[in-house]
């Protein structure tokens, strides 16, 4: 079976699973299935079918699993959002449409990710610019400054900055990897490369410190610093960068805990939420209660106790950062672990693409994107389950939020492009290979 037919098959399976979940919620809420509900479902199926056709024509050799996984996660997200607040699901559906558009635009305009390598410094500037803009003109929501309000929309620029920075780092580190991996001197018996190559590490450290202090957000800072450290490690294979980077981040986090009250609150709530049960710890504890209530099998889609009588969700921000609590409550341990497994599957496909990729830039790009995706998932899931301190970050494809779903759909587009090149280089005809080489 060709890659695209595998993709179609899995899309059909994902569509069937999603339809069942959606119908279950719809029936639970309205006690009937009417034409409107079917139209909503058909629009969703239609979006992914169009994306499938696009990939079939433009990237025929791309990885067949990423799109079905995306569809499944988006369906779970839309279903839960619909379950929690139907009006928001409609908005989220529109954002999915916008995201699909950007996905298509990325695929058609970029077509091959090697082109992006040429714009690496522009990408770096865009990424940095987005983050600085957030710090300068951003609005504080729930204690963290992660949003920019513009043209009647709320945008979370860090979601897009994530992509730009990964592209920049992939290009930059691929270029400098040799220089960075050759030790020129020894400090305390530790081989270290020349000081000037530490520059980027220091810049990145200051950037994450600035994010901690000015955005008051632990999660995004951790994400950016980790992406950087991971890519440094992949580029140079030198564990010393991980050690130093980890140490620097720990120091930055300690500084932030000491001087930023919001970060301090999050940290003390993480250590012991019970004394703060009515104040700063309320959200986390309600999340834990809601998750614990799910049990092994869960209450079933649309049947969990997620809304109070006045239609307020049991956990504040249930449809965004805490959507996993809703999933765990309704799908139980089995379903929640299943969702985690689906994320792991996505990450696995991403890293697999990186391993087989033909060149350094492609490897770094794919690994960076897969790592960013996986780590973001871990940060929010660990946060809502009190494995790590809670931080406001979205669950990719599932959380309510336009920036998140559009940026992550672009991430999928990039990964598909890398896998297209990888597969053509490995298996394609000479003609195809030559065509690709010319383009790169």
């Amino acid at each position: 079976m060709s890659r695209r037919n595998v993709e179609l098959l899995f899309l059909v399976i994902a569509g069937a699973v999603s339809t069942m979940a959606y119908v279950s919620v719809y029936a639970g809420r309205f006690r009937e299935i009417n034409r409107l509900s079917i139209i909503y479902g058909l629009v969703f199926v239609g979006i992914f079918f169009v994306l499938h056709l696009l990939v079939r024509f433009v990237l025929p050799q791309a990885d067949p699993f990423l799109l079905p996984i995306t569809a499944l996660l988006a369906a779970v997200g839309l279903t839960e959002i619909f379950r929690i607040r139907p009006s928001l699901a409609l908005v989220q559906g529109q954002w999915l449409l916008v995201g699909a558009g950007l996905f298509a635009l990325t695929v058609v305009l970029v077509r091959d990710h090697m082109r992006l390598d040429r714009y690496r410094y522009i990408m770096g500037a865009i990424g940095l610019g987005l983050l600085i803009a957030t710090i300068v003109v951003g609005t504080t929501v729930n204690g963290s400054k992660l949003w920019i309000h513009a043209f009647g929309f709320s945008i979370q620029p860090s979601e897009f900055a994530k992509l730009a920075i990964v592209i920049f780092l992939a290009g930059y580190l691929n270029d400098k990897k040799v220089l960075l991996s050759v030790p020129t001197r020894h400090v305390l018996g530790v081989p270290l490369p020349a000081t000037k190559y530490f520059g980027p590490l220091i810049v990145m450290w200051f950037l994450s410190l600035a994010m901690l202090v000015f955005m008051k957000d632990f999660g995004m800072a951790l994400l950016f610093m980790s992406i950087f450290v991971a890519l440094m490690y992949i580029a140079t294979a030198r564990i010393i960068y991980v050690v130093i980077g980890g140490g620097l981040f720990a120091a930055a986090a300690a500084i932030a805990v000491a001087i930023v009250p919001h970060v301090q609150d999050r940290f003390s709530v993480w250590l012991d939420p019970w004394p703060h049960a009515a104040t700063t710890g309320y959200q986390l504890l309600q999340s834990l209660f809601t998750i614990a209530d799910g049990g092994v099998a869960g209450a079933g889609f649309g049947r969990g106790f997620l809304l109070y009588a006045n239609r307020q969700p049991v956990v504040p921000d249930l449809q965004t950062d805490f959507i996993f609590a809703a999933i765990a409550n309704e799908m139980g341990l089995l379903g929640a672990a299943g969702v985690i497994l689906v994320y792991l599957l996505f990450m696995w496909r991403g890293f697999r693409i990186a391993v087989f990729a033909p060149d350094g830039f492609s490897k770094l790009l794919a690994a960076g994107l897969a790592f960013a995706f996986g780590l973001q998932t871990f940060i929010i899931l660990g946060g809502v389950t009190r494995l790590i301190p809670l931080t406001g970050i979205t669950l990719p494809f599932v959380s309510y939020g336009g920036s998140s779903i559009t940026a992550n759909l672009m991430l999928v587009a990039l990964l598909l492009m890398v896998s297209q090149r990888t597969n053509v280089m490995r298996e394609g005809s000479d003609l195809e290979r030559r065509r690709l080489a010319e383009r790169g």
Partner: protein
Amino acid sequence: MNKAISRIFVVGVVLFVALVVNLTWIMVVRAAWFEDRPENKRSIAKELKIKRGELLGFDGSIIAGSLRRSGYYYRDYPQGTLAPQLLGYDSVRYGRSGIEQQLNEALTGKATDLGVQSWIDRLLGRKPKGADVRLTLVPAVQKTAQQQLAGLKGAIVVLDPKTGALVASASAPSYEPTSLEEDWARLRADAAAPLLDRPTQGLYAPGSAFKVVTAAAGLDYRKVTPTTEFVDTGTYVVFGGKVTNYGGAVFGPNDFTTALTFSINTTFAKLGNMLASKRLVASMQRSGFYQTPPLPLPRGEVVPSGRYGKKGLLPPDAFMDPLAVAWAACGQEKVLATPLQMALVTAAVANGGRVMKPYYVQQVTSAAGDVVQKARPEQWLVAMKPATATALNTMMQRVVNAGTGASAALEGIQVAGKTGTAERGDGTNLAWFVAFAPAADPKVAVVVVIEDTQSTGGEVAAPMAAKVLKSALAQPALP
């Protein structure tokens, strides 16, 4: 490069495995622990989806109904707010109290003794249905009692002396349970404590109303008879202190019945020292002092009466000097009593000396219509000998017919009662009246206590007691 990529993927896998392990810990291993945490109000909120059983009056009318609004059930009070402090609240944010808490299992259909249908429902995983509870509260009497207290601070308790059934229980100031969540902060901050159920938790100096207990002890221990002669000079000097009468009155020669009729402090102070602390306290214990009355309410919602020190209830054998005994015999000193306790003492006199267990559940009917629980009156204590009760009954009739309780008299019905006025020292009084009627065959016992008043028990509390007694005796049926 590939080696590094694989290693990072392995780190990712480890992190995700940690997520699943932690999730299993939360959702399976610790699930029950999380559910039982007091911070977890999910179970209360979930119960809003169950049709909560109704609380009915003794006459069968709905006191607290269950109203369905977009899939959730809410309490509805078709007769207005009756006894909200006793009934309690059922709030997602602030938990439950009172009868709502005490009977929650039955009201939500979760109790194990709700009959076969409830078992079948549970086995089939059907949503349980709450059982209806018929209370012993009589709405008409309750309303009369609440009207008496309108605008005042105080409490009224009405008991059936022969069964121990709680006929009415009013506490003022009051609150609206339907707007509890909006009013919560204000209610909690209010110094007048509108959320407090004064009948069961209000500790008051009983004042002269306590003389019923002292008299019972004197008669029981044969220290006095109703005709024992005393001489009052207005002052009784004892142990370096003195006991005087209310308003500085001097009564001269009086017999014991007269002493109760006019509430002569010096006579009761002398009787106190004739008994000594041991016998006085023993008699108090027999009427229920120093124990928590067995009215089934959540922990802490019924408090014991007795002598209170700075750290709470003193032990029964705590030392008392003769001056302390003298004042304690008049219901002052460190003696504190709840209106419920005073109602139990009064009911004991009315019931030949026997104290019945107080209760408020007349009948529990499961959602399937089976009567699963019925009230069975039980004796709790024997407060005094039958002869003592008979003698006290006669003496208390004199209080109403010719003494301080004259304003409690009812036409055609013989009332027996005792006034009490505890001076607070800040110019305000605590006014008491304890009574039962009809004296020959008592059907109702009532206690009225009014805080922060300028008047005496006979002036302010006795007329209220009369109105409540009249209302109760006009009822076609009492528990």
